[in-house]
């Protein structure tokens, strides 16, 4: 008798059963009702969402919603086909033009998800005989792109330009080389030293792709991301991004000035062999990106809120993923899995949702409560999050010191 194909997951199933001891179950969170970009009903309780990627609060933007409604009425619920067959509507073209303008690039290519954008672009750019050189802490979509592609894969130490240079130096001079990094890393919220990484890439004649998924909308003068903020965006060959964070819907993209870029539409399988994004999604993304381009002063409000959360958690003695604020992501480092799930469950009980992140999704075997804020969070909500951390931490017996900076806030109870 042949072996049951799912039997190999028995240890995982056993572990999952054990984790059900933590209630409310952090691995079984359902948003029963979504009230706003920052609040939902979870387990029947009004809950502050402090673990989303809704950085610019676009999910309930009235103009984006109106555009999505209109597109739904005019173009229907879906395209039922690939971009290279029947799935390119005028809406998709307009979105690509909007993106090219937003990034000041000649070409833009839209994918159905951000995951597919990385999967497709990286696996297609770097082919047999080429090298793809990735940061060790790269997102799963980058690792999966490497597994799918035919290129040889080399990994360099996280955010270490010298290590990148050392590894590039070992590669054959004439081989094609694609360096892949992220602007902001989604788990710890740390930034890439892009100036130095770009310099190392240039020194060895390689090309560089930067994934700005977690930096679009609020980094740089035009909100293009970390490359713009550090003044090296014109030296970046390919920028990949997503609509599922600051843009508030779903989808992915790549922009570039490369003269041959358009050929990718006919060779990139995750672009070709999937249905294109539905009209409503495309319409809301177009409106949201246009709005992001025009947000100047508003962007800065986000940093003030993150500063408040970071300082508050630090004052209570929590170990954080970054010493100072580097992004809207504030990761709280916990010693082990029991504390991680204990804290997460206690926070849900207190009416606060944060992301649970653990190895292998996290670097260096870290157990993280990943908090992230968006423009939608009020100061009162930030204080309520801090209060909840203080109470949950004490319940778990963590050494929580002092009180949150603003003790007025049991406002969400």
């Amino acid at each position: 008798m042949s072996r049951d194909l799912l039997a190999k997951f028995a240890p995982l199933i056993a572990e999952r059963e054990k984790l059900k001891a933590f209630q409310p179950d952090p691995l079984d969170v359902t948003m029963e009702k979504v009230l706003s970009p920052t609040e939902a009903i979870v387990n029947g309780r009004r809950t502050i969402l402090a673990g989303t990627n809704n950085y610019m609060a676009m999910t309930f933007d009235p103009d984006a919603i109106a555009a999505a409604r209109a597109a739904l009425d005019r173009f229907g619920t879906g395209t039922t086909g690939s971009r290279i067959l029947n799935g390119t509507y005028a809406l998709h073209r307009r979105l690509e033009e909007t993106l090219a303008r937003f990034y000041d690039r000649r070409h833009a290519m839209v994918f159905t998800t951000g995951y597919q954008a990385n999967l497709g672009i990286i696996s297609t750019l770097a082919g047999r005989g080429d090298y793809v050189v990735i940061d060790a802490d790269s997102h799963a979509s980058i690792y999966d792109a490497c597994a799918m592609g035919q290129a040889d894969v080399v990994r360099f130490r996280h955010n270490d330009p010298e290590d990148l240079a050392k590894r590039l130096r070992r590669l054959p001079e004439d081989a094609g080389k694609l360096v892949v990094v992220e602007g902001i890393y989604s788990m710890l919220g740390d930034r890439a030293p892009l100036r130095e990484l770009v310099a190392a890439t240039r020194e060895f004649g390689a090309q560089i792709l930067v994934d700005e998924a977690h930096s679009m909308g609020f980094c740089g003068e035009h909100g293009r991301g970390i490359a713009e903020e550090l003044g090296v965006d014109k030296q970046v060959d390919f920028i990949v991004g997503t609509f599922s964070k600051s843009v508030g819907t779903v989808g992915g993209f790549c922009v570039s000035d490369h003269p041959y870029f358009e050929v990718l539409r006919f060779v990139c399988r995750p672009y070709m062999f999937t249905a294109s994004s539905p009209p409503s999604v495309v319409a809301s993304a177009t409106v949201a990106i246009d709005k992001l381009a025009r947000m100047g002063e508003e962007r800065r409000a986000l940093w003030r809120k993150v500063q408040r959360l970071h300082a508050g958690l630090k004052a209570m003695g929590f170990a954080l993923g970054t010493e100072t604020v580097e992004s809207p992501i504030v990761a709280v480092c916990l010693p082990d899995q029991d504390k991680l799930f204990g804290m997460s469950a206690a926070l849900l009980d207190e009416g606060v949702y944060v992301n649970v992140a653990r190895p292998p999704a996290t670097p260096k075997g870290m157990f993280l409560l990943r908090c992230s804020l968006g423009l939608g969070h009020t100061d009162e909500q930030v204080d309520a999050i801090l209060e909840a951390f203080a109470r949950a931490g004490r319940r778990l017996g963590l050494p929580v010191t002092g009180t949150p900076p603003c003790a007025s806030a049991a406002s969400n109870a």
Partner: protein
Amino acid sequence: MAQSIDIEAHRETFRRIAALMDPFNPKGVTITPQTTFAGDLDLDSLAVMDLVAAIEDEFDIVIPLNILPELETVGEVAAAVDRIREESR
């Protein structure tokens, strides 16, 4: 050209790799060419990649990550290192 590498050189490669493995061997397993990364050393894929980075630096070579699924034992990695050094000569 695995045949052209003499046995003493191969042993030396193995010894140098074994010497790098302390941080990846908290249980103090005796390292032999047959020691497996997943089974004997209980290393996850990230730890294996970190070990590979250390080996690359020790020998100043490139070990592409895509060949890792074929390398289950320390001996197999030593053989791959010898082959890569031979090819890059």
